[in-house]
């Protein structure tokens, strides 16, 4: 009986662990890929210009490599799922952000605007700006964040993901916005510290 228990217990534990760990509920890889694609589309003018010279094409989302894509135990395993990123709302929001990007670009360059770790833009140091420029910056950053929040919500909605996953979507998009930022732009690291890229 004791011998049988020795066999049964590890088998039971194995089955239990297997059941718990294979849990397809948040398609992080697919969303990260979608985020990269969307950020590329939004900043298309930049890629067509001189910018891309200094940056490697591969591994643009430098935070992606740190994601726990496959793990054991109680953490999640992500499935390769296609993510829907082309609904009228997403196309409309992308176009709106694309049109705004040219106006935002100088503010990134002057260090007045940065990419935070929640997938949003944040006003940094506006001291060097004129009052008119500050008004423009306030308005543009407000509009940009409104569009970005709407985009993340729409991605959740279009893919029937739980609204509680907003934080995870924001984090993945933050990876892309920061990873695809130019050198010299301000980005906020995961620990909250700001740094010049």
């Amino acid at each position, binding site marked *: 009986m004791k011998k049988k228990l020795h066999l049964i217990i590890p088998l039971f534990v194995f089955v239990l662990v297997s059941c718990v760990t294979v849990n397809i509920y948040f398609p992080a890889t697919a969303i990260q890929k979608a985020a990269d694609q969307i950020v590329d589309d939004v900043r298309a003018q930049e890629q067509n210009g001189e910018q891309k010279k200094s940056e490697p094409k591969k591994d643009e989302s430098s935070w992606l490599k740190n994601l726990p894509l496959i793990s054991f135990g109680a953490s999640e395993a992500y499935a390769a799922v296609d993510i*829907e990123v082309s609904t*009228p709302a997403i196309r409309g929001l992308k176009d709106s952000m694309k049109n705004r990007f040219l106006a935002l670009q100088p503010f990134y360059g002057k260090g007045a605007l940065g990419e935070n770790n929640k997938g949003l833009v944040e006003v940094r140091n506006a001291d060097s700006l004129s009052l008119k420029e500050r008004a*423009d910056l306030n308005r543009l950053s407000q509009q940009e964040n409104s569009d970005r929040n709407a985009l993340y919500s729409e991605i959740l909605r*279009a893919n029937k993901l739980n609204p509680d996953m907003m934080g995870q979507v924001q984090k993945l998009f933050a990876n892309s916005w920061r990873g695809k930022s130019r050198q010299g732009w301000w980005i906020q690291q995961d620990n909250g510290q700001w740094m010049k890229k």
Partner: protein
Amino acid sequence: MNYAIPEQKVAFNIVSIQQPGELLWKDYYNNFKGQKTSIKADGMLSLSGDASFSLHANLDIFQTGDYSFMMKGNKNDWSLKAVAAKVSHKNIIEKIFKEYLSNTSSGLKGFSATGYSSLNTIIWRKNGTTYVTGQYTMTDTAIHAPDMQFSIGSISAILPLDFVHPSSARQDSTAGLLGNIRFQNIQRKRLAIDTVRIPVMIAQNRLAVPEPVIIPFFLGKIHIYNIVADDLLSPDMQLKFGLTIENINLGRMTKKFLDVELPGAVNADFGMMKYQQNRLLSEGTAKINVFDGEIIAKNFFAEDITKPSRKIGGDIFFQNINLEKMTRKIPVGSMSGIIQGSLQAFVMEYGQPASFVLEIESVKKSGIEQEISADAIENISVLGTGAGSVLSRGVTKYFKNFPYSKIGIRCVLRNDQFRINGTLMEDGTEYLIRRGFFRGVDVVNQNPENAISFRDMVERLNRMSKPVNSEEIQIQ
């Protein structure tokens, strides 16, 4: 300034002229350089007891109008009488809001207004409740937003004010105060409306329109009745109104807006419409008589109407539509017969269709031929497969029309995926069009699971009625 020690009262008299420069408040910016504001004020403040005060002031704000106010009371209960006279809309826009408006919305670039406003109001606070009464008057006003292709030739308004904050302090028994708004020559793109007069009654945060508003529209009429906006000061403000449409000439309307004349009439009883938290809902139906048949629209809704993200939708059912008459006006290739069907779960976002389920089937009717032209088959083929048919080859090229016995088509757009299927199943084959008894064309869907992206669907729609050279559909 005088200070009386025994009463602990300060009496003051101030005259101040300012020449402001740049102003930034959140995202509002304006450069007021070269403009002047001034204030002349006198009053009294008691530094003891209940801190009673009185203040009288005249203001000149960038020469936009004559402003004055008189305020008295103590820290708990006070009253303010404010008068704004001959406030020039032109000066307000040009000196204060022009740049802000054009930055906020591209459509408001170049926005201009003429005319004057006046406001005479008394605001008082008693026992923790604030009351506002008075009257707002607008005269000789015209507005023009060229980038939105919108203008109103004349606006005049007399609006009584009767508000209470918080709303819980309202007294429902209060009789309403009457006013009115009159618009003339409203133009928005190709739409033109001559005159709209709206009588209003305002009582304790509630606005009601006591008479129906009738808008003449393409030889018919739009009636808006029982308009009530409740709790005007609350973000949960609710607007309710009834809407009926009577005999609008569809031909003239479609000619004006679409450059295609679709003869018919529009009649609708939308029932009571409710607008709350940016969402407009209808309880009723609209009926459009067109092409000898009837189109019925139900469950209409609209969200965020003023934003680019606006979402509109509803369900549409149609019956007895004469295909011959329809295809004479809509260039999809000529067909004859009668169809019925529905367009359900239709949603449009950002000006693009986001989802729908379209079902069309033919209905046999004695005395009506059922024929489909080669052009129409070509177009269905393009939409379904992305390529044309083989009708231009072989013996079929000598026929321009083919008889059919049944049409059954279902198109679905969902999650940006478009799918077209036949609803006629025979021996495991899916048909979109079934041939006539002696001759004709069967249109078969050989790949029922095929779905294309919205972008491809649009591209195929654009290609419809254009020559294509490929063969994909199966002709039997």
